[in-house]
């Protein structure tokens, strides 16, 4: 049985852990708020972009651009995996990595070469263990990132695609649904789909009306489309980064909340054990004294 002193030390140790988890919970909630604001600020841009692209491809004979072309026999497949750089956020990173690895396995079974681009240290670690090829850049991606970082990643996969080194590009990220819900999501980036062909039913009714507006295009639709498509891809990647970062903080918040509650429970149990031990030792001492006095009689 643990001695009284041991139990006491354990209680204070757990108490200190609890302080840390509580602090981390608060830090994460502050960071989550920041990340959510960033998503909010990005929304007008993303929405406008989508609208613009829809207008444009409605006016043009889409499908001409090389980024839209579906390769008949895809041989290589690139998966961009977005995870966090740090742990202590529950099953967040492992569920993302699992999703990506499942997709990779599926593609490999179809006879394609799979290549990973990992944003975030944790994802890189899981991919390294799994033995797939990966790009060592962008590892510390999610600690602080800007739109420019998304452009860099976008630029490199577009180059790969145009040089026919990559035939398909997927993005695996954590879609931020709400503070308590985030879903590992796979998004096909390349070959690109224009909003109509991807969105299908949503807003299908209003598009003919918008397309009816006769736009003056400068220089011309094809050139504009060529300009806008890579930027749309960058915007999608940025969106993925923003969502994942918000989800990461939400996941960490939940994990830390759980940990704090567990600490409370352990402290409760340990205190109970401590009190029991204390009483037992008092009783033992009393028995010693009483039996000693009895012997003297």
């Amino acid at each position, binding site marked *: 049985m643990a001695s009284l002193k041991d139990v006491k030390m354990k209680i204070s140790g757990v108490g200190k852990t609890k302080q840390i988890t509580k602090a981390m919970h608060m830090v994460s909630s502050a960071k989550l708020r920041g990340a959510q604001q960033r998503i909010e*600020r990005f929304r007008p841009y993303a929405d*406008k972009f989508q609208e613009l692209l829809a207008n444009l491809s409605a006016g043009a004979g889409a499908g001409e651009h090389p980024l839209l072309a579906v390769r008949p026999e895809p041989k290589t497949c690139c998966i961009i995996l977005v995870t966090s750089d740090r742990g202590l956020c529950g099953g967040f990173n492992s569920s993302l990595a699992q999703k990506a690895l499942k997709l990779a396995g599926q593609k490999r079974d179809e006879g394609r070469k799979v290549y990973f681009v990992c944003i975030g240290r944790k994802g890189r670690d899981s991919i390294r263990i799994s033995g797939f090829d990966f790009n060592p850049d962008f590892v510390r991606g999610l600690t602080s990132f800007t739109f420019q970082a998304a452009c860099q990643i976008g630029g490199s996969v577009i180059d790969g695609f145009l040089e026919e080194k990559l035939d398909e590009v997927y993005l695996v990220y954590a879609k931020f649904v709400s503070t308590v819900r985030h879903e590992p999501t796979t998004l096909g980036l390349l070959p690109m789909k224009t909003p109509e062909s991807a969105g299908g039913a949503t807003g299908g009714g209003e598009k003919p009306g918008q397309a009816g507006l*006769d736009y*003056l*295009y*400068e220089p011309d639709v094809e050139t*504009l489309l060529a300009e*806008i498509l890579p930027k749309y891809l960058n915007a999608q990647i*940025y969106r993925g980064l923003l969502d994942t970062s918000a989800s990461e903080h939400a996941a960490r918040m939940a994990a830390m909340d759980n940990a704090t509650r567990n600490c409370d429970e352990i402290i409760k149990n340990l205190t109970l054990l401590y009190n029991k031990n204390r009483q037992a030792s008092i009783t033992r001492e009393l028995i010693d004294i009483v039996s000693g006095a009895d012997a003297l009689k």
Partner: protein
Amino acid sequence: MEKNLQLDIVTPDNLILSRQVEYVGARAVGGDFGVLPGHVPFLSALAVGPLHYTADGRRKAAFVGGGFVEVSGDKVIILAERAELAENIDHARALEAKNRAEKRLLHPEAGMDADRAQMALIRAISRLRVCNIIS
């Protein structure tokens, strides 16, 4: 000229500007253009360069680092990867960037990205131009 234009400048990180203006002028890939109320619907890619607008009779400027412009009805939407209002431009930083880029281009080193330096120079010069219009 009763009617006004609604000018929105949007970047990935922020809504830079949203206000009623009388005139917008900017640099498209094909050359400078101006928009007054009643312009036909218009869509174009923007080059790196200055943007001017007139609000309440006063001429103002901003820097736009590439993107798109959409004019429809009385709305002008600028989608830019980078944009700054003239009053928010860091004059000293732009000057420094200009000098650095010039130095890089004049004395090329191994492993230097000449295109990137060129772009940086163009951006820095347009920022400075936007500044000087105001002050």
